C-alpha cells in the first residue's frame, strides 16, 4: 500500500476497531490512539517529503500513485501531494487529534460519535491527497455529509434547524460544484482524445474560454459556499453554534478550508482567463465578507457566533487572496488557511470547554472568568491575540503574506479592496478584545462560577498542542512559507502561461 492511501486507511481502521467497542472510555482511547498514529504518520510523511525534496526530486506531486477504477469514464484514484496539500494535511491531523481530546467528555452514543467524526476526517484526508476531480468530489461529499448527523444528533440548541440549513446549503453548493467539475471534465480534451478528471493534466491544457466563463463561477461559488463566501455564509453561524465542540473545530478548522483549497486549486488554477475576468465580482464579495464578517462579530453575544463571524471574515481574506493572482498572495491564502484552521480550532475548543463549565455561551452572563479558570482564560487570550494577528502567532504571518502579496497588484481597485481588507484586522481587534473584556475580565459576575474547575488534563492536551502549533508557525514561519511558495511555482507558471 502506498503512503498516501495510508492516510485514508488509518482512520478507516480506527473506525472499524471502534465499532467493536461500546464503552465510551475505550472508544475515546482508541480514537485518540488512532489519531495519534495518524498524526505521527503525517509527521513522518512530512519528513519523507522533505527528504525527497532535499534529494532534488522536484516533481510537482510526490508519492504519486495512480489506479484506474472506472476506466470507461477515465476516473482514477490518483493521489499525490505537494507542499500545499501536505501542509493542509498536517493541519487536519492536528485538528482531528486535538478534536478527539476536546470531545473527551462525550458519553452519549460515543461509539457512533467518534466513528462519524473520524469518517469526516477521512473525507478531508482523501480530499487533500486526491488529484482526480471525481475522487476529490467523492471525498468532499464524504466530509460534508457526516456533519448533518454530528450536528443533528450531538448538537445543542436548534440543532435540527442548523443541521438542515448547513446540509442544504452545502449540498446546494455541491450541486453547482458537480456541474462545474463535470463541465471541466467534458472539456478536458478540447483537441480530442480521452477526457480526464486529473486536474494536474487539465491544468496543462487550455480550456476553451467560453467554457471557462460558464464553469468558473459555478466552481468558485460551489467551493466558495463552503468557505463562507458572502452572501452564502449564513449556514456558518448557526451551524457552528449548534455543533458539538469537536465538530465546530473540525468544520471551521478544516472543512471550510476545503472550500478555499478548491477555489484556489480548481477554480482559479484551471480556469485562469475566467478567473481574471470575473475576479472583480468575487473580490468585491470577499472584501465585503472580510469587513462585514468582522463588523457582524462585534454585535454578537454568543461566543460561537462571534467566532463564526470571525471565520467569515478570515475566510474572506483567503478568498480575497486567491483572486489577486500572484504567487505571494496565493501562498498567503494557503498560510491563512492553516493559520485560521489552527486558531479557530483552538477557539472552538476553548469555547466548548468554557461552555461545558458555565453552561452558557452568552458573554454577558459571564465575567471575571479569568479568575476562576486562569489556564482557559489565558489560552483564550492567546487565541484572541493570535486571531487578531499579533506577531509571534501564525495569523500575523499569513495576513502579512496576503497583504504584501496583494499590494504587489497595483491596480487601484485592488488597492482599495486591499486597504479595506487590511482594515478588517482592526475590527478584529475590537471584537476579540470586547469579548475578552466582557467575559474574562472584571469582577466575577456569578457567584456559582466560583467553584468551576479549570482545564483538565485532556483539555490541556488539546489546548497546548494547538497553541504550540500556532506559536510554532508564528515564530518560525519560513520553512512552511518556503515550502508552499516553492511548490506553487510550477502551478503558478502554468497559470501565468495560460
Amino acid at each position: 500500500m502506498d503512503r498516501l492511501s495510508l492516510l485514508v486507511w488509518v482512520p478507516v481502521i480506527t473506525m472499524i476497531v471502534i465499532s467493536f467497542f461500546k464503552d465510551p472510555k475505550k472508544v475515546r482511547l482508541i480514537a485518540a490512539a488512532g489519531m495519534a498514529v495518524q498524526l505521527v504518520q503525517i509527521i513522518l510523511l512530512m519528513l519523507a517529503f522533505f527528504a525527497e525534496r532535499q534529494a532534488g526530486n522536484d516533481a510537482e506531486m510526490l508519492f504519486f500513485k495512480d489506479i484506474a477504477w472506472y476506466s470507461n469514464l477515465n476516473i482514477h484514484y490518483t493521489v499525490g501531494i505537494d507542499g500545499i496539500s501536505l501542509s493542509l494535511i498536517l493541519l487536519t491531523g492536528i485538528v482531528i487529534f486535538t478534536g478527539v481530546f476536546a470531545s473527551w467528555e462525550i458519553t452519549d452514543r460515543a461509539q457512533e460519535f467518534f466513528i462519524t467524526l473520524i469518517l469526516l476526517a477521512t473525507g478531508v484526508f482523501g480530499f487533500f491527497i486526491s488529484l482526480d476531480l471525481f475522487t476529490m468530489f467523492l471525498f468532499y461529499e464524504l466530509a460534508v455529509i457526516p456533519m448533518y448527523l454530528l450536528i443533528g444528533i450531538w448538537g445543542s440548541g436548534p440543532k435540527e434547524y442548523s443541521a438542515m440549513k448547513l446540509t442544504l446549503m452545502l449540498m446546494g453548493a455541491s450541486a453547482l460544484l458537480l456541474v462545474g467539475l463535470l463541465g471541466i471534465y467534458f472539456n478536458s480534451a478540447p483537441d480530442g482524445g480521452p477526457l480526464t478528471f486529473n486536474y494536474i493534466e487539465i491544468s496543462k491544457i487550455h480550456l476553451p474560454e467560453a467554457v471557462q466563463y460558464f464553469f468558473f463561477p459555478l466552481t468558485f461559488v460551489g467551493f466558495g459556499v463552503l468557505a463562507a463566501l458572502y452572501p452564502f455564509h449564513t449556514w456558518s453561524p448557526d451551524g457552528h453554534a449548534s455543533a458539538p465542540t469537536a465538530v465546530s473545530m473540525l468544520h471551521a478548522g478544516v472543512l471550510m478550508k476545503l472550500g478555499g483549497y478548491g477555489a484556489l486549486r480548481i477554480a482559479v488554477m484551471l480556469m485562469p482567463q475566467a478567473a481574471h475576468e470575473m475576479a472583480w465580482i468575487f473580490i468585491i464579495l470577499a472584501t465585503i465578507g472580510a469587513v462585514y464578517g468582522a463588523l457582524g462579530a462585534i454585535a454578537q453575544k454568543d461566543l460561537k457566533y462571534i467566532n463564526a463571524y470571525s471565520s467569515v471574515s478570515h475566510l474572506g481574506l483567503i478568498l480575497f487572496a486567491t483572486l489577486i493572482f500572484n504567487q505571494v498572495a496565493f501562498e498567503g491564502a494557503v498560510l491563512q488557511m492553516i493559520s485560521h484552521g489552527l486558531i479557530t480550532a483552538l477557539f472552538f475548543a476553548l469555547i466548548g470547554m468554557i461552555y461545558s463549565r458555565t453552561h452558557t455561551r452568552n458573554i454577558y452572563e459571564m465575567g471575571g472568568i479569568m479568575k476562576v479558570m486562569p489556564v482557559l482564560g489565558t489560552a483564550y487570550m492567546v487565541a484572541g491575540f493570535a486571531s487578531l494577528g499579533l506577531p509571534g502567532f501564525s495569523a500575523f504571518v499569513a495576513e502579512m503574506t496576503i497583504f504584501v502579496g496583494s499590494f504587489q497588484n497595483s491596480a487601484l481597485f485592488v488597492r482599495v479592496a486591499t486597504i479595506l481588507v487590511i482594515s478588517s484586522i482592526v475590527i478584529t481587534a475590537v471584537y476579540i478584545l470586547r469579548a475578552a473584556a466582557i467575559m474574562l475580565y472584571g469582577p466575577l459576575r456569578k457567584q456559582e462560577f466560583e467553584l468551576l474547575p479549570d482545564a483538565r488534563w485532556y483539555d490541556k492536551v488539546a489546548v497546548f498542542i494547538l497553541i504550540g502549533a500556532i506559536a510554532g508557525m508564528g515564530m518560525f514561519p519560513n520553512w512552511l512559507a518556503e515550502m508552499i511558495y516553492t511548490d506553487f511555482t510550477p502551478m503558478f507558471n502554468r497559470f501565468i502561461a495560460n
Partner: protein
Amino acid sequence: MHTDMFSYTVWIPLILLAAFLLVGLLSDKLKPLVAGLISTAAILLAAVLAYSAAAGYFFGAGLQDGHYTTLIPFEQLWLRFTDTLVIKMGILLDPISVMMLVVVTTVSAMVHIYSFGYMKGEKGFQRYYAFLSLFSFSMLGLVMATNLFQMYIFWELVGVSSYLLIGFYYQRPSAVAASKKAFIVTRFADLGFLIGILLLSYYTRTFDFMTLTQPNSGILSSAAGVSFMGASVLTWALVLIFMGGAGKSAMFPLHIWLPDAMEGPTPVSALIHAATMVVAGVYLVARLFAVYALGAPAALEVVAFIGAFTSLFAAIIAITQTDIKRVLAYSTISQIGYMMLALGVSGYGSEAGLGYTASMFHLFTHAMFKALLFLGAGAVIHAVHSNEMTDMGGLRKHLPITHFTFLIAALAISGIPPLAGFFSKDEILAAAHGHYPLYFWSGWFVAGLTAFYMFRLYFRVFWGEDRQYEHKPHDAPPSMAIALIFLALASVVVGFIPFSHYVSANGEPYTTHMHWQVAALSVAIAVAGIGLAAWMYLRPGTVADRLAAAMPGLYKWSKNKFYIDEIYLWVTRTLIFKGLAWPIAWFDRHVVDGTMNGMAWATAQVSEKIKGLQSGQLQQYAYAMVLGAVAFLLLLLYWGA
C-alpha cells in the same frame, strides 16, 4: 568590519525573552520574589550588555571616517515574501538605536527594582514581572530593528505588552476598558503604519532601513515620482507611517488612550507610557528621517505641525487635571509633541539637523526625568492610596526622599538650568526658531505652561495643608528609593552629555553652541510659570478658583480634555457600533439569512401547495399520464413535421 565584536548584542533581547518565557510559563509555580529576581537579573544583565555596547560603539567601532556608521552584527531571514521583500530579524546598531538601548534598559531596570517595593504583596506578582520582561524584550527588539517589518512586529508586541500591563488589574472594569482602548486606538494607528509600509515597500522594493536611508541611492525617486491625489506616493506612505507613530506616541488626535492608560500600575506608566514605548513614534520618524527629509519634506511638515499642536494642546489640558498621573500623562504627550516638532523642523545634515539631535536628546533626557516623575508619583500614591491631588498636601514632611527627587524632576522638565531638560529643550526651541518662528513661540509658551502645571502639581502635593490620610504616609521603601535616587542623579547629569557629538541626522558629529537668547527666553518663561504656580497654589487662597471662574469656557473645555474622548465615544458607540455593527448583525440575520430561510420557506410552501397533486386518486394519475402522452404525441407530430 567591526560587526563581530557586537554580535553579543543579540543576547540583549533574547535574555529578556528567556526571562519572559521562564517566568510566564512557570508563573504560579515560582515564588513571587524568585520571579521578580529572575526578571530583574535579566534586565540588569541586558543593561550591562547595552552599556558595554554603547561604550564600544560610541568610543570605538562606531566612528569611522568621521561619522557614525550603521552596523548590523546579526541578521537572520525570518520570512520571505518575494526575492527582495523579506522580513529579517536582526540587530542594527547606529547612534540612535544604541542610545535607545541605554534608555530602555536603564529605565526598565529601575522600574524592575522599584516594583519590588511598589507591587509588594500584589496578586499576580509573577505575571507582572513576566509582562515587564516581555515588554522590555519587545521594546529592545523594536529599537534594534533592521527593517520596517521587524519594527512593525515588535511594534505590535510592545502594544500588546502595554495592553497586558494596563489591564494588569483585570478585575477593575476601568482598567479593562483602558487597556482595550489603548490597544484599539494604537491598532487603528498601526493600520496606517502597515499600509504605509506596504506602500513604501512596493515602490522601493525593500524593507531594510540601511537601503532606505541611503541618501544618494535614488531608491526613493521612483516612489517620489508617482503621485496620488496631489501628493507623491512617498509622501502618502510616510504620512501613513507617521500615523502609526502618532498612535504609539499619542499625538493629537490619537492621544486619547494615553491618559486612560494610567489605570495600569504606576511603574508601568513610568516605563511604557513615559519613557520608552510612547517615544517609539519619535524613534520611528527618526529612524526613517533620511527618507522623510530627502524624499518627502511635506510629510515632515505634517510631523512638525502635529508635534507643535499636540504639545500646546496637551499642556493646556494638563493645567486643569487633578489626577496626578493624568497630569503627568498629558505632560508626556506635550513633551513628545516637542520631540516631534524638533524632528519636523529639522533638516538633513549635521548642523542643519539640529532638530534631529535635539529631538533625540530630549527623548533621552525626558525618559529620565519623566520616569522619575512617574516613579515619584507612584511613591506618593503608594503612600496615600489615591491619585487625586485633592487628597494630597503637605507631603514634603512625610516623604523627604520622594519630595526631593520629585523636585529635581519637576525643575528638569521645566527647563531650569543646569538640569537635563534645560539643555534639550533649549536645542529644540533653537531648532524651531531656525525653521519657523510660530513654532518657536508656541514651543516657548508651552515651556511656560509646563513649568506652571508641574509646579501646580508639586505645590499641591508636597506643600499646603496635610489632609486626612488613612495612615501616616511613609516614605518610599529602599527598593523604590534606589530607583528614585538613581534617576534623579541621571536627571541632573545627562544634560551635560555633548549629544551632538554622538547623534546627528547624517551621522557626522558636530558641536552645538548655546543659543543664549533662546535660553534666556525659555528660562524666563519657566521661572514665570513656577512663580505663577507658587503665587496661585502656595498660599492658601482662591486665586485658582477665581481664575477658573473668570474663564469658564476655556476652563471647562480644558478640564474635559476638549471633549475629544466624547467624540471618539460618539464615533465608536454611535457610528460604528450602533450605526454599523448592529445593523450589519441585523441585516445578516434578517436579510441575508432571511433570504436563505425565505428560499427554504418558499420551497416548503410550494410543496405544501402542490402536494395535493398526489391525491391518491388513481384515475387522476391516469388522466395526467394520458394527457401527458397525448401532449407528447402532439409535440412529436408537430416537430416531426
